C-alpha cells in the first residue's frame, strides 16, 4: 500500500462544485477544502446535497461544473490514481449477501491490492469483533453486524481518505457508540482524512473537528462545532441543525 504522503495539499478540495440533474440542482456551487488528517461532518436535511457531494468525491457522479480533487487527483477523470487510497461505507450500499464475510473481504482485498490478505482480514476481524462471523453468509447477519463488516471493508486498504455516509444509521445506541470508538481509533492511528455525512448530531460533535452545513445544494455554514454553536447561540448541534433546517437562522439574521 502507498503510505500517506507528507504534504500540505488538501486531502479533498471542491471548487465551485455544481451538479444539476433533470429535476434541478442537487449541488449549486460548493467550495471547501479538507486538510489531511481532518475529520469533517457534512450535515443537512434530506435533499441538501450531501450524498451527491460525496458521490462526486468518490467519482461516481460527474460534476456539471466546478472541480473536485482528492489527494491531488481530479475526480472522476483521474480517479484511478487515487481510488486505491480511498474507501467508503454507507448503509445504502451492500455487499453480496450470499458470500461469507471472509469471502467478501477477500474479494475486496484483491480489488484494492491489499498485501497479506489473510493477515489483514484477521486483524480487522479482531479489531471489529468479527472473528465469530467470518464464515457466516453476510446476508444472515444483523444490521449492526453488517455495519461492522461494511466498516471492515472500508478499512481493508487502510485508506488515507475515508468517506462515511450515515455510518451508524439504524443501529442501536450501543453498536453506534462502538462504531464511533473504532473510527476515532482509526483516525488516531492512521491520520486519515474522514468526511462523515450524518443526521446524528451527537456523532458529529464527538467525531468531527469541523462541520459543513448544507442546505438546498449550497453551504449554509462551515466551522468548528464550537464556532457554529457560538454563531447560532445554541448549546448543541442538534439545535443548530434544526435552526438551519427550519430556516430560523435566516429569520434571525434578517432580524439582526
Amino acid at each position, binding site marked *: 500500500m502507498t503510505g500517506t504522503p507528507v504534504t500540505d495539499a488538501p486531502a479533498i478540495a471542491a471548487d465551485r462544485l455544481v451538479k444539476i440533474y433533470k429535476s434541478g440542482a442537487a449541488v449549486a456551487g460548493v467550495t471547501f477544502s479538507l486538510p489531511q488528517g481532518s475529520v469533517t461532518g457534512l450535515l443537512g436535511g434530506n435533499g441538501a446535497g450531501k450524498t451527491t457531494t460525496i458521490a462526486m468525491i468518490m467519482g461516481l457522479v460527474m460534476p456539471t461544473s466546478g472541480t473536485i480533487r482528492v489527494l491531488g487527483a481530479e475526480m472522476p477523470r483521474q480517479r*484511478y490514481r487515487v481510488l486505491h487510497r480511498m474507501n467508503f461505507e454507507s448503509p445504502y450500499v451492500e455487499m*453480496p449477501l*450470499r458470500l461469507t464475510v471472509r469471502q467478501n473481504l477477500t*474479494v475486496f482485498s*484483491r480489488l484494492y491490492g491489499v498485501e497479506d490478505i489473510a493477515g489483514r482480514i484477521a486483524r480487522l476481524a479482531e479489531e471489529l469483533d468479527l472473528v465469530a462471523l467470518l464464515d457466516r453468509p453476510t446476508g444472515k447477519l444483523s444490521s449492526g453486524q453488517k455495519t461492522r463488516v461494511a466498516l471492515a471493508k472500508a478499512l481493508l486498504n487502510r485508506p488515507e481518505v475515508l468517506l462515511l455516509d450515515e455510518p451508524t444509521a439504524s443501529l442501536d445506541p450501543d453498536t453506534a457508540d462502538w462504531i464511533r470508538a473504532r473510527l476515532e481509533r482509526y483516525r488516531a492511528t492512521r491520520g486519515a482524512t474522514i468526511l462523515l455525512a450524518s443526521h446524528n448530531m451527537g456523532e458529529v460533535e464527538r467525531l468531527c473537528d469541523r462541520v459543513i452545513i448544507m442546505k438546498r445544494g449550497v453551504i449554509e455554514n462551515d466551522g468548528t462545532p464550537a464556532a457554529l454553536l457560538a454563531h447560532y447561540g445554541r448549546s448543541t448541534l442538534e439545535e443548530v441543525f434544526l435552526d438551519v433546517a427550519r430556516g430560523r437562522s435566516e429569520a434571525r439574521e434578517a432580524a439582526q
Partner: protein
Amino acid sequence: MSGSEWDLSARRIGAMVERYWYLLRSSWPRLLDLVYWPAVQMLMWGFLQTYVAQTDGFFARAGGTFLGAVLLWDILFRGQLGFSVSFLEEMWSRNLANLMMSPLRPVEFVIALMIMSLVRLAIGLVPVSLLAIAFFGFNLWGLGLALAAFFANLILTSWAVGIFVSGVLLRNGLGAENLAWTIMFLLLPLACVYYPVAVLPAPLQAVAWALPPTYVFEGMRALMIDHVFRADLMLWALGLNIVVFAVATVAFLALLKSARRQGSLLQTGE
C-alpha cells in the same frame, strides 16, 4: 499503482471471477438452473427431430440439424445470459457502487463477466451435449474444428450483446432488466437458427446477413446436410463480430459515462 483506465490487472479480474464462483458454489438452485432449460430444450427438439425424420426423407438426410441448432443457439443465448446475469447479481445485491468506487476498471469487470459467461456455459452445456449423445446419438463434439469456429463466433456475439445490455442497465437501472432476458430472442427469427436464410423475405434476408450468428447457423447446416465446412462464412461472421464487439464496447463506455453524469450509479434500483 498506475492510474490509467487501461492499466489492467489479472489480480482484480481474478477477484471478480472468484466472487462469482463463490456465488455459484453457494447455491445449488443456481447451478441446477444452468442445466435445466438447455436440457429441456434439447430433449424437446430431439424428440421432434426423431419424429419428423421418420416421416420425411429430407429430415432423415439432414439428421441432427435441429439438435445442432438447439445446442448452438444455447451457446449464443446462454453465453449472453451468463454475462448479463453475473452483471445483474451486482445490481440485485446493491454492490455496484462498491465496485465502481474500487480500483476495478470497467474493462476488467467486462473481462471477468466474459470468463464467467464461459464458466456458466460450460456447466450448462457440457452435460446437455453428453445427454444429446445418450438420447439421440447426436455428438456435437464430433464437429471438431468446425465446432470451435462456430463456438468462437457465437460467444463473441453473445459477449457483445451482454456488454451492450450491461451498459443499458448501468444507465437505466433495474427498470431495464427485462432487456437482459429477452434481447437475444430478437435474433432467433432473424439469425435463421432453425431454417435457411432463403426462407426469409428479401428485405429480411439483408438484415439476417448483417448478423454474425446467421453465418454460423448457415455454416452448421452446410456441414450437416452437405458435409461442407464453409470457412468463408466463418470469416464473414468473424469480421462482423469484430465490428459488433467494438460498437458494443464503445456503447458500454458511453453509457457508463452517461450514468456518471445522471447519477444512476448510486441509484441502480427501478
